[in-house]
């Protein structure tokens, strides 16, 4: 393999320049992380890695299947990275630039929590081993020296572990206190710190009230809850950034009749830009030269491409399908429609965080009451017993025994179990709050194409015969147009030999079948005199003078009507919002029984509609699949998208479901409601436990053994109760 050694030579690279996003490492190397598409199996991974590693400049190359990222590093010229990237593209894998810094934060948090959890688990195991020894023998039998020895070992294990593993709680409560309010972490931290200090004091004085094991157990259970929580939450943060990645690439700009690769963000008004087929259009502009078809799904949600001619306006983020054209930028990239959508999404994502979770509501009641009870215990014992040690001991016991182990597990365990249950039936929960929010919605907003319908045109079986279909299919295989592909899909038998195939962008395909010239394409182009273009989706075939019409329909999902009815029966308000023409939208709305529908809605219109409803206090579920739905998905209280949606939309949605039916949406709602019920039950259990435990602690009847048993059993009961989510009743 010949490798370019001189970076000053003319670049052999293709349209995209990735290397400008590379980071410079120490000792003259570069590293680059890109998002990679179509990685499905081990052999894909191996092929990509092998292709990169066979160049001796490549220091490392690794594909991450879970996150679909490719990371590689190389030494030498920075631009060599593009050469490598194009090697991968040549293998048939799509690459997109992706900022390194985006995901760092939550990953690091996850790792820190895992470390804390591991240390707490280590300490808990060893402390329990020692504590069981202490509990099972009387001091008289064991001897004070042995008891002290075991206690000091406990100190040595517990103190470092508590200091290490308690950090997430200590820092979080410090932050809360600095801002002059409290959260659940304040009583946790207080209980742990006081319990450790008191236990240390008891150890020094040869006492018996050693709560190290309880304190560490508390940390361990709480860290499990915290870790599950962050795992459930971590994934939903990429959406606006993924959309922004579209603004990050480069565009081919023509200046002084030469091509230049210019980062999209640097494009100015008036520049002439060349858009190759398959590329997304970098900025809003007007077609200046050439004719092509553009996939406008970003704006309308429709997958059937629009014909664009000289003078037509095109929008950033839409995709050029058939042939290269030049456009004059009419706006700078940040001001383009795509830029506006990104800004909209960022705004809605910020406003989203205002949702108050059940757990936080519980904490806001729980925290002050526990502190007051502990304080009253201290004062009470001080007044009636007169010794401050005993008073403090009992107050601390109250804090330990009321510590919200069960409360901390109540929500995350139920969420993770519900999540894994849904995952098994092909429903992916991407944010932890999603279920909780879903249980409280009262309005459902549906998109049309790809949501109520399958989003793919299907050939209607009438108006043509078998041999005509065969000819049409033979031509259609030569085109990537969605309608051509629908014809190829509909015909599975032998194809005819065709010659001189020529595709006329925006019109159709022409070829010689035998000695006959055959055209497959638009009505007028196929020589039909009747100039009226109808609303129906159609494709014409002309063989000599014979004209055949193929009609297509974007079929409704099988259970669309039932699903809408289900929503209406349980009292949700259902609305249809679509970018498609009013006539088609009203047709579909009538078919499925939605009275409230709006057509020709741009992404911005959709957002405004949702904002208006939100102001009125509605809790909205948005279901959509197109790029044009992405901002409204992120604005709605909770959002669902089918897995056939494009990746940005899937990233934005809280929940993604697989399959050709809408049933999963119903199932998710049912599970969400059940999960909410179970979470509330869990809180009830926690409260019940506290009602028994608190009086015991207040009056000084709790020993370290009782504390350890009570704490672990309440946690276990909550976990077991959460498992009821997996019971059969839900189907």
């Amino acid at each position, binding site marked *: 393999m010949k490798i370019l050694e001189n970076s000053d030579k003319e670049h052999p690279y293709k349209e995209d320049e990735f290397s400008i996003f590379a980071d410079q490492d120490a000792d003259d190397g570069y590293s680059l992380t890109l998002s990679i598409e179509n990685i499905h199996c*081990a052999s894909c991974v191996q092929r990509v890695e092998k292709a990169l590693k066979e160049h001796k400049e490549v220091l490392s190359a690794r594909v991450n299947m879970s996150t679909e990222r490719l990371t590689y590093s190389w030494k030498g010229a920075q631009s060599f990275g593009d050469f490598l990237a194009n090697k991968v593209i040549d293998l048939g894998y799509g690459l997109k630039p992706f900022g390194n810094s985006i995901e760092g934060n939550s990953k690091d948090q996850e790792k820190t929590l895992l*470390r804390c959890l591991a240390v707490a688990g280590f300490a808990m195991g060893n402390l329990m081993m020692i504590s069981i020894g202490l509990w099972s023998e009387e001091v008289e039998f064991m001897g004070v020296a042995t008891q002290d020895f075991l206690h000091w070992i406990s100190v040595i294990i517990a103190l470092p572990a508590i200091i290490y593993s308690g950090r997430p709680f200590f820092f979080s409560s410090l932050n809360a206190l600095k801002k002059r309010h409290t959260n659940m972490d304040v009583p946790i931290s207080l209980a742990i710190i006081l319990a450790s200090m008191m236990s240390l004091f008891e150890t020094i004085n040869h006492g018996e009230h050693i709560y190290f094991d309880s304190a560490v157990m508390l940390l361990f259970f709480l860290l499990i809850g915290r870790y599950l929580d962050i795992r459930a939450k971590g994934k939903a943060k990429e959406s606006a950034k993924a959309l922004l990645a579209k603004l990050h690439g480069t565009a081919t700009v023509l200046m002084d009749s030469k091509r230049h690769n210019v980062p999209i963000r640097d494009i100015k008004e008036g520049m002439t830009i060349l858009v190759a087929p398959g590329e997304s259009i970098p900025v809003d502009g007007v077609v200046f030269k050439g004719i092509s078809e553009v996939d406008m799904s970003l704006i309308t949600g429709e997958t059937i491409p629009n014909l664009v001619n000289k003078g037509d306006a095109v929008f950033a983020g839409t995709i050029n399908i058939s042939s290269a054209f030049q456009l004059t930028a009419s706006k700078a990239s940040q001001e383009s429609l795509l830029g506006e959508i990104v800004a909209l999404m960022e705004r809605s994502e910020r406003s989203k965080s205002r949702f108050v979770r059940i757990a936080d509501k519980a904490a806001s009641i729980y925290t002050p009451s526990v502190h007051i009870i502990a304080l009253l215990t201290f004062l009470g014992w001080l007044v009636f017993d007169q010794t401050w040690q005993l008073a403090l001991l009992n107050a601390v016991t109250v804090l330990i025994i009321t510590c919200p182990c069960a409360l901390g597990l109540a929500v995350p365990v139920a969420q993770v179990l519900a999540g894994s249950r849904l995952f098994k039936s092909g429903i992916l929960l991407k944010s932890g709050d999603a279920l909780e929010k879903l249980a409280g919605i009262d309005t459902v907003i549906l998109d049309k194409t790809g949501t109520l319908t399958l989003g793919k045109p299907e050939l209607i079986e009438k108006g043509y015969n078998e041999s005509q279909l065969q000819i049409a299919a033979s031509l259609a295989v030569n085109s990537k147009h969605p309608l051509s592909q629908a014809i190829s899909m509909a015909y599975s038998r032998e194809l005819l030999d065709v010659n001189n195939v020529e595709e006329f962008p925006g019109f159709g395909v022409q070829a010689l079948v035998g000695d006959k010239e055959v055209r497959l394409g638009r009505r007028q182009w196929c020589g039909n005199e009747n100039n009226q273009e109808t609303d129906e989706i159609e494709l014409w075939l002309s063989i000599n003078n014979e004209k055949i019409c193929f009609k297509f329909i974007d079929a409704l999902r099988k259970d669309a009507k039932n699903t809408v009815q289900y929503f209406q029966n349980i009292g949700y308000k259902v609305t249809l919002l679509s970018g498609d023409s009013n006539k088609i939208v009203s047709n579909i709305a009538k078919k499925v029984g939605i009275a409230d529908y709006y057509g020709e809605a741009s992404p911005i219109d959709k957002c405004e509609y949702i904002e208006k409803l939100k102001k009125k206090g509605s809790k909205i579920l948005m279901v959509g699949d197109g790029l044009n739905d992405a901002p409204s998905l992120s604005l709605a209280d909770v959002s669902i998208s089918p897995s056939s949606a494009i990746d940005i939309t899937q990233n934005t949605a809280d929940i993604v479901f697989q399959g050709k039916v809408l049933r999963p949406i119903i199932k998710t709602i049912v599970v969400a409601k059940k999960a909410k019920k179970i979470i509330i039950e869990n809180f009830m259990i926690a409260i019940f436990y506290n009602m028994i435990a608190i009086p015991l602690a207040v009056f000084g009847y709790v020993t370290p053994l009782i504390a350890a048993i009570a704490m672990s059993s309440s946690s276990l009961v909550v976990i077991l109760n959460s498992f009821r989510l997996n019971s059969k009743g839900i189907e």
Partner: protein
Amino acid sequence: MDVLVYLIPIALLLSFIGLISFFWTLNNDQYDDLEGSANRILFDDEKTE
């Protein structure tokens, strides 16, 4: 009871080894791509550096 003086340190040491190896795997990013790692065992002849 004297045997405790040996047994407890041994128990601690063993679990400490477990803890250290967990940290090692975590720092080596071995949990980053569980799906990919599961598939990597199917590779025929990946050369290691």
